[in-house]
């Protein structure tokens, strides 16, 4: 975080929304950036509420169910039928998925 909580008016500024959009490979209009900045701040405001609870003595929880060690054996199972695999692909070529160029 860039500044102590009390000194920050907003949790997130427009530049950070732009950075997040860039990481997510999506383009936002100026209006959308404004809307998302506002919405992100509202979401983070909720977390401020949660932060009020003192959790220092509680170990972090990594899973909502009280289960550990869920394993399977190394045995080959069913794969998808060849025709089914590409059924939902917006673009394909032969037996490949097709994606925009990457560099």
């Amino acid at each position, binding site marked *: 975080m860039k500044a102590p909580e009390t000194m920050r008016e907003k949790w997130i500024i427009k530049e950070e929304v732009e*950075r997040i959009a860039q*990481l*997510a*490979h999506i383009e936002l209009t100026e209006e959308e950036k404004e809307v998302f900045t506002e919405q992100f701040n509202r979401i983070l405001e909720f977390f401020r509420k949660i932060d009020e609870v003192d959790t220092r003595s509680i170990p*972090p929880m*990594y*899973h*909502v*169910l009280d*289960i*550990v*060690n*869920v*394993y*399977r*054996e*190394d*045995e*080959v*199972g*069913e*794969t*998808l039928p*060849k025709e089914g*695999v*590409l059924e939902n692909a917006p673009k394909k*070529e*032969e*037996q*490949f*998925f*097709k*994606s*925009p*160029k*990457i*560099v």
Partner: protein
Amino acid sequence: MESIEESVKIGLEVHTQLTSLKTKLFCNCPSDYRGREPNTLVCPVCLGLPGSLPVLNKKAVKYAIMAALALNCQISEEMIFFRKNYYYPDLPKNFQITQYDRAGGAPLAVNGYLYIEDQGYRKKIRISRVHLEEDPGRLVHVGPIDQSPYTLVDYNRSGVALLEIVTEPDLKSPKEARIFLQKLRNILEHLGIFDGSLEGSMRCDANISLAGGTRVEIKNITSFKEVERALNFEIIRQKGLVEKGITVKRETRHWDEIRRITVSLRTKEEEQDYRYFPEMDLAPILISKSFIEEVKAEMPELPEERIERFMKMYGLPKYDAEVLVSSKSLADFFEECIKLHDKPKEISNWMMSDLLRYLYENNIELYESKITPQKLVDMIRLIEEGVISGKIAKKILPEIIVSGKEPREIVKEKGLIKIMDEDLLNKLADEVFAENQKAVRDALIDDKAIHYLIGQLMRLTKGKADPNIANKIIREKIQKIREKELRKNA
């Protein structure tokens, strides 16, 4: 002051597939994707379809613990998987399931080490962590990567179990990096969890820094043969910059195997932020002491133990045992030979000298050659049976290595069978004597000249004359001349 070369610090991040597993890390799809039709070994989990749930392969954890133990690591009591987020078509989910050492995450194992040896000195390379993660899919480009109009994706590899092994920057040269990788490969192969001969089964990233510069990361080193090359290039590049007074900037570079150069991959602005967070679809894994003990009990023989055994069982000198156990395929080859023919010393000699030299000089590995234990043993038997001389064996060995032809066939085809016919050799010796009259006179008083004549007879028979018989015949003939001379003078 230390030189630039002495200031080199290299750390490696190695990714090895757990090739002995039958299935992927989080689903039941077969993991032997090589040479298979694209996108035929996939399911909702490894395609990242909504609603699918990953379930961890128990054997993968067992194998990873084996590796961690062999690398002298401390194994975590609890291990958690994380999502590493980035958008790239090789990841169908837009995140990779991996492990993380921050944000409360614990990788499978930490704080290990491995000793490497180079020219007689031993050096400790610290291993910071070992963890499990999934392999991304395979991208196919149409032509060169930067000119491809689009990218084709095959998810058969997506979800295959990878072991990530990260070292501290304790390596001081590209050569040490190669030695480290070879040693690592040897250990993983002896554990029976990895086969380094499979294409793309071991990849690595390296970070390297020189005095007066910052850390540069090199990605896309696709085999351990390439690692030395990539690092050597990078040292020359960085040294050049330092000498010109230009600061080496912190960046990620890509090893271009074809052009054999590193190219800048990302600038600071394009730097990724992986936004790691726990993978809620996978329950935490508690690794109990008893599970570790169970794995320990099943640990196969490791290279160091095998070297000891080779010395004891086969009476080999330490150096020979170390060379033979420097790779699992070599050590297995040796022991296969012994099963067929119980002559450890002979077999070791042939492997250590001619076989290894040929492989080394031609930069190929044993598995890339056509020789088999049976063929090497057949060749040695031909010598023992007196069919060929050792000299001829040395000549035909490269052909066995390259073509895989039966030694007996090669000998027959090329007419290389040893000439043991004394009458024939006598006749040929007469020819040698007629053509080398001066040498014959010298031979009466000089042993060197006798050797010369034997050499000429061997040459005339293209090395096929039995050396013992050739030696005997030449000496007898000289002796006869001496006696004749004596009688004449008497």
